[in-house]
């Protein structure tokens, strides 16, 4: 481990190897409360099975008390046996009631520190602190729960030590004061965003539940005769007034589905994005968002490897885009950090500049990819579906006894899908552009939902060219770029262009060592 110049900060208590500390005392309360829902199901079972016995209720209450005591006791032991210790070079966490596990993470490896507040810890003013190393998911070190001030103190400490940037003397949580807001979403924007996040997930869940729990319904959901009988009552006159009413019914169902989808989208988006604020301070970007679970993530500027600008087919019509950072750290499962989920271009531009990137102007040397690749891709997709369609057609012709409309239409459907896929491949080629500037590589693709990837040339990890048999014949290749935390690939580059591109990228990559980048 290289010596880290620790800025002199008035935190003598934690300098050097401090005594192990426990997480906040109230963590076990939170863990107990969070465990309560797990007690509900067994309780319901007990209540149900003892409903006819004289002391049924008393038994149920006793058992419930037992379960709650067990959960709380377990939570208490877990709290008692979890300690953390901030050393000079690393942070150590020991956990485990019987089997102990000690994990140590050197400050240098910590990509960022995020604070997360779920609903219950939030009521107690507690935070969950996660140390992101790029290991991802369950392997990340986390401390649940610390008080908000302790969480922020730890974060400042880790950031000071990992970056080894001499902070001004007497730094004590004053970073927060010099924060500049880069992007924020007021409630109105969040609601607008929700409108575009139309989701029928709830309908699917309800449908699934209905199927699972149909024994609870007073009638058989899938019992067609029953439905006919019921419809014969009030439904008969409905059927009687003819197609107009049926049309009205269909429209009503669609409207209902639409409303549910819209409301689901708005609710989910609001829960996730409420109070979205992206700020920039001396150390990096800081993002806070969430209605019930409030997260607070810090991303150092120099750890941003690449940018990705995305939009959707519908939202682009209103000029909405999203911007994500590609970094080594994980963001709730995704390998990128969304820093502006729903913004105008003029709002995204300053964030791009703040991350040390620049946008490609119109004067950027935009190139197209190989037309032969588009032709090959389109033909491959067409043939992949047209050949089965033709075979099926012959089979149907040989078997005249098949008269199902679906089977007869299948070849046409397959052929049509093939044509659509081929057109899509061609369309993709038509809208694909790339440009290499002195510092960055731009890749623009897609038209229905246009996307733009911006990679910093020096921050790439590896470059490879891949050619299939057709690609070799027609002289094009796919360029795959190794990016820490993401991937960028440009298909169909003419070989000469691909080689030139690779040579230039490698020249800028070899000029710097990885340790100077991250």
């Amino acid at each position: 481990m290289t010596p880290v110049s620790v800025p002199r900060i008035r935190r003598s208590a934690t300098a050097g190897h401090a005594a192990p500390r426990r997480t906040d005392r109230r963590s076990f309360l939170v863990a107990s409360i969070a465990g309560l829902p797990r007690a509900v199901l067994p309780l319901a079972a007990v209540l149900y099975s003892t409903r006819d016995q004289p002391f049924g209720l008393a038994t149920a209450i006793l058992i419930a008390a037992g379960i709650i005591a067990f959960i709380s006791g377990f939570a208490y032991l877990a709290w008692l046996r979890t300690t953390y210790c901030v050393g000079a070079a690393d942070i150590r966490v020991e956990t485990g009631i019987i089997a102990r596990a000690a994990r140590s993470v050197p400050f240098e490896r910590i990509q960022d520190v995020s604070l997360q507040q779920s609903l219950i810890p939030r009521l107690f003013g507690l935070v969950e602190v996660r140390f992101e190393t790029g290991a991802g998911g369950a392997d990340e070190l986390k401390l649940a729960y610390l008080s908000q001030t302790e969480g922020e103190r730890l974060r400042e400490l880790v950031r000071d030590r990992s970056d080894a940037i001499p902070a001004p003397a007497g730094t004590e949580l004053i970073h927060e004061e010099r924060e500049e807001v880069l992007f924020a979403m007021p409630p109105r924007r969040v609601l607008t965003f929700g409108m575009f996040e139309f989701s029928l997930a709830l309908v699917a869940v309800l449908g699934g539940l209905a199927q699972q729990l149909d024994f609870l319904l007073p009638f058989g959901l899938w019992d067609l005769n029953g439905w006919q009988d019921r419809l014969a009552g009030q439904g008969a006159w409905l059927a009687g007034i003819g197609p107009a009413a049926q049309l009205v019914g269909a429209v009503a169902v669609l409207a209902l589905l639409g409303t549910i989808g819209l409301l689901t989208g708005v609710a989910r988006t609001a829960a996730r994005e409420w109070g979205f604020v992206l700020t920039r301070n001396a150390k990096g970007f800081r993002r806070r968002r969430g209605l019930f679970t409030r997260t607070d993530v810090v991303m150092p500027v120099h750890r941003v490897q690449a940018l990705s600008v995305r939009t959707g087919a519908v939202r682009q019509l209103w000029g909405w885009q999203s911007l994500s950072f590609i970094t080594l750290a994980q963001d709730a499962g995704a390998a990128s950090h969304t820093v502006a989920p729903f913004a105008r271009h003029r709002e995204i531009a300053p964030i791009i500049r703040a991350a040390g990137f620049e946008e490609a102007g119109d004067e950027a040397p935009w190139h197209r990819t190989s037309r032969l690749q588009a032709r090959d891709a389109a033909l491959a997709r067409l043939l992949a579906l047209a050949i089965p369609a033709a075979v099926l057609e012959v089979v149907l012709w040989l078997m005249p006894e098949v008269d199902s409309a679906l089977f007869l239409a299948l070849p046409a459907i397959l052929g049509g899908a093939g044509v659509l896929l081929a057109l899509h491949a061609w369309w993709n080629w038509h809208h694909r552009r790339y440009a290499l500037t002195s510092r960055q590589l731009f890749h623009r693709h897609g038209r229905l939902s246009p996307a733009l990837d911006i990679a910093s040339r020096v921050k790439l990890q590896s470059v490879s060219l891949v050619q299939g048999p057709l690609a070799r014949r027609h002289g094009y290749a796919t360029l795959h770029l190794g990016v820490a935390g993401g991937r960028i690939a440009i298909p169909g580059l003419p070989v000469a262009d691909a080689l030139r591109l690779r040579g230039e990228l490698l020249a800028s990559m070899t000029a710097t060592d990885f340790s100077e980048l991250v």
Partner: protein
Amino acid sequence: MTEPPEGSDAEPLHQLHHAYVKVLRISGALLAAPLVAAAAALEMALPTPPGLLLSVAVVVAALLLLRVPFRRYNARGYHFSEDRLRVVSGLLFRSDTVVPFGRVQHIDVAQGPLERAYGLATLTLHTAGTHNASVSLPGLLHADALAMRERIRARVKRDTM
């Protein structure tokens, strides 16, 4: 296939150690043996013209044993320069990867049982990239692989993420 593959830079590629052909051939044999056995079993079970399945299987096995290892060997190559390693491989789908030493996170030198029998080793470079997280170069002499590892290690300035 012996000429430098399409998509090469100006520099000539180094071939792997010729014993690697034998390694590939033995791996091919391990793949071909069950194939021939299965064909023989099917031959007895199915009312096909005698010898049809078996002869097809034998032809495929012969290709796997004689032709394919040689072509795969010829398709592979590497170039080790001052600051980067270039690895070329693939018969049907050719891939040509360059890893600058400045981006190497850690280095593995591994020997499977077959490789050990022939004194060969596989050099694997790990990068932080999600694509090409590890780039392998098989079929090196074990001593060469170790020497390459040392040279790369000298180039990796600091052992840090």
